[in-house]
């Protein structure tokens, strides 16, 4: 065996041997993208303890009434978005944007609304706004890979348009 190669091998082996003896080991398990279940979360509501009991009944809304941020799109919003899509198809980006602003007042966190807004601005050649709106849509689209894909394509188009 080439003595050089042997030396390198020894060094590598020593490194591994020593790293095993190290006081603190590197954990290879990666973090999760969503918070783990059953562990109190930073900024999350405290576990149902004394605090809830001591709260006066005038709290509004009562904890049971708070619905989790709905993941499902309401019918009214779906219809509004379909209307905007129709307007975009008919080449009326201004009207579509207007419709989408109304949609925003129903639910400001639906990534599709923001994506369609980006589309309207793209149709008008307002590329900078198109990119910003697509990025905004992205920031809300953690659970919507299909919308993220569309945003990415739109951003590419807008950047090409910007030259």
């Amino acid at each position, binding site marked *: 065996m080439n003595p050089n190669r042997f030396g390198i091998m020894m060094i590598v082996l020593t490194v591994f041997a020593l790293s095993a003896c190290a006081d603190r080991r590197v954990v290879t398990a990666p973090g999760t*993208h969503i918070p783990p279940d059953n562990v109190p*979360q930073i*900024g999350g509501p405290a576990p149902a303890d004394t605090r809830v009991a001591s709260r006066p009944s005038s709290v*509004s809304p009562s904890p049971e009434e708070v619905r989790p941020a709905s993941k499902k799109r309401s*019918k009214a919003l779906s219809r509004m978005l379909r209307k905007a899509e129709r307007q975009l198809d008919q080449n009326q980006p201004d009207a579509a944007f207007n419709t989408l602003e109304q949609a925003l*007042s129903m639910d*400001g966190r639906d990534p599709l609304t923001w994506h369609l807004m980006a589309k309207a601005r793209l149709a008008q050649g307002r590329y900078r706004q198109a990119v910003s709106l697509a990025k905004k849509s992205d*920031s*809300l689209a*953690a659970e919507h890979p299909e919308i993220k894909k569309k945003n990415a394509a739109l951003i590419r188009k807008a950047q090409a348009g910007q030259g």
Partner: protein
Amino acid sequence: MMKMLKRLTILLLICGGAAFFGYAYHVNLKVEERFKERLWDLPAKVYARPLSLYQGRELAPGALERELTLLGYRKVAALSGQTAPGSYTRHQGQFTLICRPFDFGDERRPLRRTQITISGNRITRLATLTRYTGQDTNLERLDPVLVGQFYPSSMEDRIVLDSSDIPGLLKSAIVAVEDKNFYSHYGIDFKSILRAVAVNIKEGRFTQGASTLTQQLAKNFFLTPAKTIRRKISEAFVAAAIERHFTKDDILEAYINEVYLGQDGTRAIHGFGLASEFYFGKPTALLSVKEIALLVGMLKGPSAYNPRTHPDRALERSHTVLHLMADQELISSTQLKKALAGPVSVIPVPTHSPFPFYLDLVKRRLLEEYREEDLKTMGLRIFTPLDPLVQLAAEKGVAEFMKTRDQHRDLEAAVVVTDSASNEIQALVGGKRARFSGFNRALDALRPIGSLVKPAVYLTALSEPGTYTLVSRVSDAPVSLEAPDGTLWQPRNFDRKNHGDVPLYKALVHSYNTSTVRLGMTLGLDAVADTLGHLGHTPSPPLVPAMLLGSLDMSPVQVAQVYHTLASEGFYTPARAIKAVYTPDGDTLQHYALTIEQRLAPGPVFLVNKALQAVVSEGTGKSLARWLSPNLGIAGKTGTTNDLRDTWFAGYSGNRLAVVWVGRDDNLPTGLTGATGALQVFGRIMAKLPNTPLDPGPPDDIEWAVVDPVTGQRTGRDCPGALAVPFIKGSAPDHLTPCARTRQQTGPQPTAPEPESHRGETKKPRYLIDWLKDVFK
């Protein structure tokens, strides 16, 4: 001699004739000019947002009723075909509305009947019973509340009617009563003048006039109301000129729009269009025979025959008019009989919805682009995002808080509420009294923001994930800095304690001053100022260390702008108080659409938002739980300035953001803190409004790890005190400390200061070489 006299007479006649025709020519030109311009100065109208109704919308029945009251809709026992628009019935959660027609700018909606069912504070059913073209049955919009108007100096208000809006009966009734020979004379009715002269001579004074409609119009347009012979003569000239230029129909239409029909405070009610709304709450086209007769009767003397103040006199006069109409066969005898029966139902004086502080904001924004003169005369229609229900909640929240602080008479407050998606301003309170005296605290009170500045410091830190995470150790040991003038600045914590080394997020959650100053000085004032600039407010130089604790003057509206950028994942959207401006003809003059710009990376903003949620769940904002469910996950920050002069709270749910300032105009101490002052207003306001939980989705570059906040190291999820904490990918601690090695206590922080060098020790090594160094250390 005679010859001379004759010549003189001829000369005089020639001169007189020249003067006559010269004057007539002059008047003619003047009339021509005048009618070329816009005929009337029309006040600009400012509208609130229209309330949209759709299935599934969160809306309490009481809130809908409040909106209807603001709109001047009248509650009736039952609706018949004759019921006026702007009426409704309510049976518990069941509403039936006769909606007024309205031009929203982007669409017109006609008069229609709508049914709304609300149960469990949500709209469960919506049906529009009147069919019309272009109808969207799934979404209904009520006409918006008129927030205010910008009046011309004459204070004249009117709704100008087109000839198609004017009922034929109204025209013929006016002619029958005011000027029988209208269609045959040339502007001046000599027969009537002779008759009037005869009467006046007999009575020995001016009692009877013989003004034609044209003369009355001439008088209103060009002349003073003084009753002199000279004015009478000019009036005749002007009337003749008007007749020369315009058809009888044009003249009658102008009269109908011009004539004065009453007073509402300082506002003068002009024209039948506005009078129909003012007295009967309906458009002119929908007036009944009886109502037409009453309004026409008022022409004789709008105050003497005012149906509200003199109902008997007005009724009697309307009967005279009705008989005259029947005599001239304008109405049948059955119509007459029906119209004579019963009283006239006049609506109460429409209430104004004075939101003077918001109106002030709108006006200031408009004056950046429009001339004041145009605002007061062009009849612009201005649509704003003001939400009257939010506005009322904000005013009520302030009032209720003030009641609990009876002993503090001089306390004042300001509130801004915005939509956290669009950053449209929904409500603005500029003081505890609704009356506006020129000082709009929400815009004008520039006060130090105190700890409200801190999120900018922590955001700057968290934007360097290689150095700082939410659980990095920061030192809270006493700090002392030398000011440029040589004096020492020694900021202290509110509780006067030194908390030792604390996890970074805890320093924000408990609003520690010394750790914030240490952190800010390490980051650099420029870096913090840059972050503030990205958020929406660039502090003016020179930058001083005290800026880190909020020695920085801002108005509540400016603070709202900064916090909105946090609430919207780092995207900056200028706050808007105007949506669109339309001309009276319905053309869009300007549409203020939403614009957006990414100013900050979403990852660090997400981390700050989590910390701000912790402020409310466990820190200085904890007492919010008295009003708001912890499940809403409100993010917020308290602020208090030196000697308790200003108290602030800025916070947001998933759909709404509010900033509250409580302090004194004379800037003396209030004895209150952010938590005992502004926070309590915030809680009261938000509790009255529909809020969605704040649940920001983690951006792509976020990963969660379970850590022990005390050591800042990873720990098992079952270990006591284990907490799920988000990190920018790659910045999470790598070293797992088994449960046994974690401290048993979880809540309190170590009070003994730890050596500075421990900071950042648990950072994850980023490169192989670092990792090797770490291993061989």
